[in-house]
């Protein structure tokens, strides 16, 4: 019997009559609505920067046990003060949309389709390719002057890489392998 009255009391009509309301106020709220709260309430926050343009807006990345929940503007950033542009606001989808590639892919010469390959295997093959190409084309001296460079391997980087990544690229490619054809989008 008790469960019946409980069930009845949950019927908004009863609440409506008891509170003499017109059925449009809080009495018509379902339990799910009453229990509503922002999904980022108990999430961890990582403070980050938007990867899109050069303004450098601060971003708060809410995540919980290894899963992204939402990305919003960082109110304390002196540049953006919590705001973002449409691209910055779409950062969450940038990381979680279904067309994002998560598997290593390889295309053999003359092939028409991609084939699967493991990440470790791919790294070894690339290392071999670099090693052979460098061996074939390295120039130690050119009419007397030591130049120690190869122009047969080139690098074209975007400007959305971190400073540390750029540093490692320059250190390995130029200081290590002697590649000079290293370029990226930033010129002026």
């Amino acid at each position, binding site marked *: 019997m008790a469960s019946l009255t409980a069930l009845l009391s949950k019927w908004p009509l009863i609440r409506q009559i008891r509170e003499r309301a017109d059925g449009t106020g809080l009495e018509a709220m379902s339990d799910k609505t009453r229990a509503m709260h922002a999904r980022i309430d108990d999430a*961890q926050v*990582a*403070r*980050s*920067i938007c*990867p899109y*343009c*050069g*303004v450098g*807006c601060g971003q708060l*990345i809410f995540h919980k046990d290894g*899963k992204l929940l939402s990305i919003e503007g960082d109110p304390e*950033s*002196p*540049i953006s003060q919590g705001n973002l*542009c449409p691209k910055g606001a779409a950062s969450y989808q940038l*990381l979680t949309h279904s067309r994002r590639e998560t*598997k*290593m892919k*390889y*295309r053999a*010469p003359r*092939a028409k389709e991609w084939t699967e390959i493991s990440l470790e295997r791919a*790294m070894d093959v690339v*290392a071999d*390719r670099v*090693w052979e*190409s460098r061996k*074939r084309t*390295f120039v130690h001296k050119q009419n007397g002057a030591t*130049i*120690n*460079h190869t*122009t*047969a*391997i*080139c*690098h074209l980087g*975007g*400007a*959305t*890489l*971190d*400073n*540390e990544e750029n*540093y*490692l*690229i*320059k*250190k*390995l*490619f130029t200081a*290590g392998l002697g590649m*000079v*054809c290293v*370029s*990226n*989008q*930033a010129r*002026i």
Partner: protein
Amino acid sequence: MPGLGTSFGRGGATTAQQDLANADCILIEGSSMAEAHPVGFRWVMKAKERGATIIHVDPRFSRTSALADIWVPLRAGTDIAFLGGLVRHLIENNLFFREYVVPYTNASCILSDEYRDPEGNGDGYFSGWNEEKRAYEGDSWLYKGGDLSRPERDLTLQHPQCVFQKLKRHFSRYTPEMVEKICGIPPELFHKVADALVAASGPKKTAAVCYAVGWTQHSKGVQIIRAAAILQLLLGNIGRPGGGILALRGHASIQGSTDIPTLYDILPGYLTMPHKGDQTLQQYLDTYTKKTGLWSGYPKYMVSTLKAYYGKRATAKNDFGYSWLPKLTGNHSFFEFLYDMLDGKMEGMFLMGQNPAVGAPNSRLQRKALSKLKWLVVRDMVEIESANFWRESPEIDRGELKAEDIETEVFFFPAAGHAEKEGAFTNTQRLLQWREKAVDPPGDCRSEAWFMHQLALRLIAKAKASDDSIDEPLRALDWWYPEDELGDPKTEAVLTEINGWYTDPVAGVGDSSGNESVVFGIDREGNPHHGKQVNGFAELKADGSTASGCWIYSGVLGRDGVNKANSRKSKDYLGHGWGFAWPGDRRIIYNRASARPDGSPWSERKKLVWWDWDSDKWTGIDVPGFVKGKPPDFEPEVGAEGLDAIPGDAPFTLHEDGLGWLFVPKGLQDGPLPTHFEPLESPVSNELYSHNTNPPEHWIGTRHRAMQSFHLC
């Protein structure tokens, strides 16, 4: 960066975006700021709310023009004519900010007598033009007597051979009527813009200029920025709050990609890459070290960089490994090696976050070049056109390319997103900001740092196995980075190397907790690797006792072990305490110019940095960009070296004379003063000079003349 670099000394925006709120007039040209930098535009709107005049110069009425007070429908490619007209207007009607221009710029410097300007025979050439080489040479542009450190100056600006008179003569034909003929804007509109800029100049008022690729992507991009630099110097806005030139960068870390460059012609910190002629370190240092100014410390920065690259193996005996650095034999930029790709001479290519198949000019040529490679590594988050050109490009669709005869072997590495790796971006106002890692990257996605680290480990292992002398640099490389569980190198360890340290390791000390001010002191094999951190580039030495990956970033992770790029407590509107602005956390550079020559602020409303007489040091809202204790009336003795050769009233400490360069005596390929030339494909001919386009312009592909038109490739 040569545009701003040559005019003021540093290749970066001179002010901060939030400082735009204090401008009394903002000229946005060569950029649609509301569309490309919407959150940066918030500060322009704050300025507009406070009564600033917003001027947008753009052939297209874009969303920025919708919010601007004045829209100037300029014809594309004629920015120099417009800016030149403004400069002439300032000079002819004596409206420039004289108390600023005379002491702080090289307007008063006397030029050598061989200098000829294009006004002589109206053909658009300066003196020193060599027809066969199609380039300028010789040093006819230097100051009288050839020494840039102590120029002879005529403060009355009357001397016929002084920069000011040359400037006046150079722009004398850029009249408002000429501007109407070239740019297609009526003189009334030109005068409205001129009056707005002049009203926002002087002790109590400042104006700011914002630009982006609308200026840089031209056949005379650098000269357009030079014209803006001259305009801002004449209006007296550089180094002052609400003034300066803001270069709006298109990518999250374009400024970072030129500070720590993956470019062919510079090393981190704008050090020049050695060319074939510089055989020894000493010979290299002699050519690039300047007697006075900050660049006199060139040997300290270069040796520290080499110590960072080669660590213990770089010793004084082997020129600190200078011989291992590759030497340039010409222009190895992307457009040049594109033609090596087309000829099949390029074997391999790494594409990390760029999409030339649609992102680079003449993309049909790009896709064909990609198909000639032997192997191609593409790292991106999605399958971009450059990765599937062999399957889905217009050429495949039209049958010009067939998948079965494209030889290229393509490796597609999925990349980690910005929230899946930590690291620092340098934004458009030279601010290093750290990104904390939130979650691990999914599946096979890895960061570029992981890729480079794993590639380096494999290559160094191969180099150690071989005894071939050409692998010497690889064996000497100091790849010491500790890893985390996913195989990523610890990014903060790389940042400590970029910041710089004392090289001899403190025995048995230095875990990552940063005690004894040593950070990440233990390397991969577990033995101590380096000593205390350096607190700034002033501490760098040329004897190999210090190392620094990038001297201009030094100070970001000093002895206190605090990663300043990750500091998130902004104390004032300029954002001190939030991130680290290079150099030395200075938010508005050349800010010595925000004080009068005698050290007092220009006005109460526009004070930023001033000389505090009783405590005898520079103080202010921003970190002073000057030697702390050098009084404003300091006079250098004759023959002084380095920074002590800079007088007390010279804000631009990177230049040998410490002055803002209206006239660039050295450092540019296409002339000391901006001259208007038509775009390469312009429907009208040049009104001002007999030559239509920028003379030293490389129409890349002289070797492949016909390549340019689509028929033959």
